[in-house]
């Protein structure tokens, strides 16, 4: 049977950071991804990232993806398995993989789950019409394949993804009729909102989609205002002629592998759904199974990379590769970095979610 010291499932920013960190201590790493190249969601992100200048802020996602992929290729301790799905993890430390060659077991001493998140669907009449897309699909079409999804788009959701994709649609020459937001305030960063507002795109807070209509495909959408109880207010309907409805209504962590591995999972709405309990080393309640990135709670690429690094460091330490003082020092450094990244108002929700999670974790260990 093929053997590795650390198996990392998911080659997005969290998984790659974890793999590279562990490999830097000589750990043999196998990095697994559904896609045929490393990078995860970064490969379709043409905007520049925020964060520390010293840590590459201002770098566009696509450029970062290329840099990280090169580091993976050049690192002799990391083996990349592309077009491969992790099917399950069993108590004898065997990860079952579906590779292009068929089903293969992989014996691994440690496992890092960095599977990311999936898009939430929204329920409304007509949501099954062709022309209703998730924001991820729209980004892939435009930024990876260079295909315009349509002529005129209604964006549903004003988190950073909804705002950024709206901007990229206009860059691609597509009209964005409006951005809807059910909450009374915009979800994403104000600078992203201002950036699309000055392109003339209205951001309608307290609004949602009532229905999509069209003969065989989207031809328009009816939107309406919401009351305090999130119910549509009759009489406030507006008809928008659009051929694409793009849903950017949030992400939910992809935790199937963690459930199956026996990690204790908790529902924390601030973190996007079910997430595993984990300790200060990013280790879950399933021994030897670590988590990082959106799979541990939906956040930004910058926090995902820091978490991945922490998980990779911890995995290497647990394999006896990191001197204890160095481990403690580096761990505090990364934890401090994470703390600072979350210290602004946009990080408050995440901090609330993490607090809920840590309270529940204490209950488990007590």
């Amino acid at each position: 049977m093929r053997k590795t010291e650390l198996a990392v499932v998911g080659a997005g920013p969290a998984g790659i950071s974890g793999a590279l960190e562990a490999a830097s201590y000589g750990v043999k790493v196998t990095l697994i991804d559904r896609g045929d190249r490393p990078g995860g969601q970064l490969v379709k992100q043409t905007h520049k990232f925020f964060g520390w200048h010293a840590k590459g802020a201002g770098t566009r996602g696509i450029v970062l993806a290329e840099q990280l992929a090169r580091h993976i290729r050049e690192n002799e301790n990391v083996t990349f398995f592309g077009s491969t799905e992790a099917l399950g993890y069993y108590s004898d430390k065997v990860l079952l993989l579906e590779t292009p060659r068929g089903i293969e077991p992989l014996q691994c001493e440690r496992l890092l789950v960095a599977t990311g998140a999936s898009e939430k669907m929204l329920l409304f009449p007509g949501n099954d019409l062709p022309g209703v897309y998730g924001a991820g699909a729209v980004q892939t079409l435009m930024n990876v394949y260079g295909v315009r999804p349509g002529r005129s788009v209604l964006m549903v959701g004003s988190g950073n993804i909804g705002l950024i994709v709206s901007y990229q649609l206009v860059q691609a020459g597509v009209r964005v009729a409006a951005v809807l937001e059910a909450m009374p305030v915009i979800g994403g960063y104000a600078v992203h909102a201002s950036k699309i507002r000055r392109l003339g795109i209205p951001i309608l807070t307290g609004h949602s989609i009532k229905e999509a209509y069209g003969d065989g495909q989207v031809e328009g959408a009816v939107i309406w205002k919401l009351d305090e109880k999130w119910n549509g207010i009759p009489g406030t309907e507006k008809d928008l002629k659009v051929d694409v409805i793009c849903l950017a209504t949030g992400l939910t962590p992809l935790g199937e592998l963690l459930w199956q591995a026996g990690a204790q999972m908790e529902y924390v709405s601030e973190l996007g759904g079910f997430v595993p309990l984990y300790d200060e080393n990013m280790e879950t309640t399933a021994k030897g199974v670590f988590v990082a990135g959106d799979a541990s709670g939906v956040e930004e690429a910058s926090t995902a990379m820091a978490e991945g690094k922490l998980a990779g460091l911890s995995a290497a330490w647990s394999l006896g590769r990191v001197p204890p003082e160095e481990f403690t020092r580096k761990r505090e450094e990364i934890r401090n970095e994470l703390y600072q990244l979350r210290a602004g108002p946009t990080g408050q929700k995440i901090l609330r979610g993490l607090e809920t999670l840590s309270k529940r974790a204490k209950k488990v260990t007590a």
Partner: protein
Amino acid sequence: MSDEGLLVTGIPTSEELARVTPPRERREKGPCVMIECFQRIPCDPCHYSCRFGAIKEFEDINDVPEVDWDKCTGCGMCIAACPGLAIFVVDESTGNEECRIAMPYEFVPLPEKGERVRLFDRAGTEVGTGVVERVIPGQKPQGTPVVWVRAPKELSLVARHLAVNREG
């Protein structure tokens, strides 16, 4: 202009803008930066992009940028560095009815020197036209192009986006 709130409409309020607007005497002296970044977010490249120390060092990565207009030369380097596309340079020193505005522009085609472009305010409403004075294309694939336009003086604090009009 709407004053409902930045997080409701995406448009900064007049109070928010007042806090980051260079004083008139400063604008009339020469180009100076106007940073329209009002929310605490984890971001600091603007500070590092300024070679003149005009954007103060961030104690906390979430701080909003603070400008020292005495040090700012209006060079516009920070415009290209800002991932939020939130930085502009204004110049009312040209002495006539005109002003100069530098803004980030990430669309194709880029305007050309001498071309007349349409100008828009922070709500995306067309407010007039201007003439392109200089285009700094920015390095591919990272850089954000910066466009300098000459515009009517009353637009120096108003125009924040431009559009190239080639189809006629």
